[in-house]
């Protein structure tokens, strides 16, 4: 049973490597990618079921026991995210099959997606900080390739910035790891947590934790998000959807893991700073979402707002808020992918990214319009769609912690999300129809199906949240009680 956990990273990796050797069989590329991601989703659901019933699953590679060898640790939080990652990326691949174009497919698009998913899954599952660095790099290298795939001028310019900032932040990550190793002499997360708990979080350790905060903030787009809108708005829609849904979430996961498992002793310093950063992110993201009139930029700024919103939960650090954050994280992965796919379809049919150039699409493409409207409602948190429950729980948690400024900012950001997306909806779908019937670019059914599946998923999560509750509660409980994690890994 335990070894299944490794498959979640190894399956996409092996399929990806295999596909590199058969570059001419694009059909095999397409369907084996899709099917392997679905198989992976099934496996992760199975593992999740096992974790909820029997506790955390760990694998020690090569039978080197926990603090000495490299281990994979699957708790409900990480495996829930792995499950969502696989489902969302499978649907994005389905969209890519119809839209990405043969030339990009032949440049190993599908292997890169699989490597990216392998890196993301590995980052969620690893129980070792240095291994987290390695899986981060696997993910980032695949993302460098995907962001430049196609090689338009704008892509090349934006990706240079993206790569430069990520290389520098990876170096900072290594610096932080080096300091931590020098101070505590271990890199296994459970072992680290135990040692920090016994020696106490000394000022030096707090400084190191702030270094980690900077690194993961760069990756997740918390406060240091200036690179994000440009680089997320240049690649093709399917790639942008995968980026928007997955990449920042890995940074958020790393923040949650380090600041609930390792550095939770000096909350008046570290978590206060996280709270301030989340507040500034919410404000900055909101300003960006309102200020621009380019659809892709508005959508990218919405990613930033949700990053700030989720990290409010980490700042207040109580179980209700964390539960809310876990639900919201899952919801956000689904809905952000949906939003990027719909924006991509709109730009495809209207041949423009600017709000002023598009109008009256609802007459030509009613299904697209309605799906966009449902997405807007879900993102804003209108019941019974999936955004509602996360927002309510997070809100209750923030009230319990009596941080009213964060409460006000996070709820106001909801209005900004509503305003910025309704602005797209009203100016693009309402108004005079500018595309005549002869000029209309047919939007194939196959291009709408992936978005439709995601719409059903957000409605489904909304109605079926009762079924998700045991997993969410288990995830939040493990996050709030590091002993559960430590005991499972070190097998006491």
């Amino acid at each position, binding site marked *: 049973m335990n070894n299944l956990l490794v498959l979640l990273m190894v399956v996409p990796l092996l399929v990806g490597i295999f596909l590199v050797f058969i570059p001419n069989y694009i059909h095999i590329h397409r369907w084996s990618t899709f099917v392997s991601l679905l198989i992976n989703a099934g496996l992760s659901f199975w593992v999740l079921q096992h974790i909820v019933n029997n506790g955390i699953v760990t694998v020690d590679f090569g039978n080197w026991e926990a603090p000495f060898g490299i281990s994979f640790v699957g708790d409900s939080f990480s495996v829930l995210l792995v499950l969502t990652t696989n489902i969302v990326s499978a649907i994005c691949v389905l969209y890519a099959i119809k839209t990405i174009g043969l030339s990009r497919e032949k440049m190993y698009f599908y292997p890169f997606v699989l490597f990216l998913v392998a890196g993301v899954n590995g980052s969620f599952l690893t129980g070792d900080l*240095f291994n987290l*660095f*390695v899986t981060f*790099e696997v993910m*980032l*290298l695949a993302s*460098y*390739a995907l962001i*430049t795939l196609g*090689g338009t*001028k*704008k892509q*090349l*310019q*934006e*990706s*240079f910035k993206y*790569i*430069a900032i990520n*290389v*520098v932040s*990876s*170096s900072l990550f*290594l*610096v932080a*790891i*080096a*300091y931590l*190793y*020098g101070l505590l002499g271990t890199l296994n997360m459970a072992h680290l947590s135990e040692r920090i708990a016994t020696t106490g979080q000394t000022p030096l350790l707090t400084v190191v934790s702030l270094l980690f905060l900077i690194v993961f903030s760069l990756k997740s787009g918390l406060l240091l998000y200036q690179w994000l809108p*440009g680089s997320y708005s240049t690649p093709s829609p399917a790639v942008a959807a995968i980026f928007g849904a997955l990449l920042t979430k890995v940074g958020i996961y790393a923040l949650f893991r380090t600041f609930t498992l390792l550095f939770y002793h000096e909350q008046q310093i570290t978590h206060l700073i996280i709270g301030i950063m989340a507040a500034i992110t919410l404000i900055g993201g909101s300003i960006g979402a309102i200020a621009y009139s380019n659809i892709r930029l508005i959508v990218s700024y919405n990613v930033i707002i949700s990053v700030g919103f989720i990290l409010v939960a980490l700042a207040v650090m109580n179980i209700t808020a964390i539960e809310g954050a876990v639900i919201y994280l899952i919801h956000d992965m689904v809905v952000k992918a949906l939003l990027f796919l719909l924006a991509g379809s709109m730009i495809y049919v209207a041949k423009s990214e600017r709000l002023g150039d598009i109008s009256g699409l609802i007459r030509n493409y009613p299904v697209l319009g309605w799906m966009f409207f449902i997405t807007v409602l879900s993102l804003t948190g209108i019941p019974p769609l999936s955004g509602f429950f996360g927002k309510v729980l997070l809100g209750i948690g923030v009230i319990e912690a009596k941080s009213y400024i964060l409460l006000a900012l996070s709820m106001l950001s909801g209005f900004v999300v509503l305003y910025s997306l309704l602005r797209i909806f009203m100016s693009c779908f309402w108004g005079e129809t500018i595309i005549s019937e002869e000029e209309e670019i047919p939007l194939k059914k196959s291009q709408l199906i992936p978005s439709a599946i995601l719409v059903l998923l957000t409605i489904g999560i909304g109605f079926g949240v009762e079924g998700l509750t045991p997993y969410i509660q288990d995830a939040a409980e493990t996050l709030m009680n590091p002993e559960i994690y430590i005991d499972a890994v070190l097998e006491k």
Partner: protein
Amino acid sequence: METLIIIVAGVLVTSATYLILSQNLIRVILGTGVLTHAVHLLIMAMGGFSGNVVPIIGEKGNTYADALPQALILTSIVINFAVAAFFLVLAYQVYNRMNTDDLSKLRRYYHE
């Protein structure tokens, strides 16, 4: 010995920062390379540096160096090799497509 290595790492970080902040594509890439090497030295120093013992537990010897930092550095070198290779190819592509290696001139393309 540790002090010396830390000073060297500091000098490398300084020059890397200067290079990364410059206008030239190749200089930025070289800067990231120098930065990662500085970090490798730091990892080595943080692992403790006893000077003349090997990282293997011999049958007779009772002192040995910590082998882990070297494993970490090796992994990191491999990763950075891949990243640097990709980065250089990207810079070449940028130069090919836009006939410039000046970052401030690249900006114009974005605003068109």
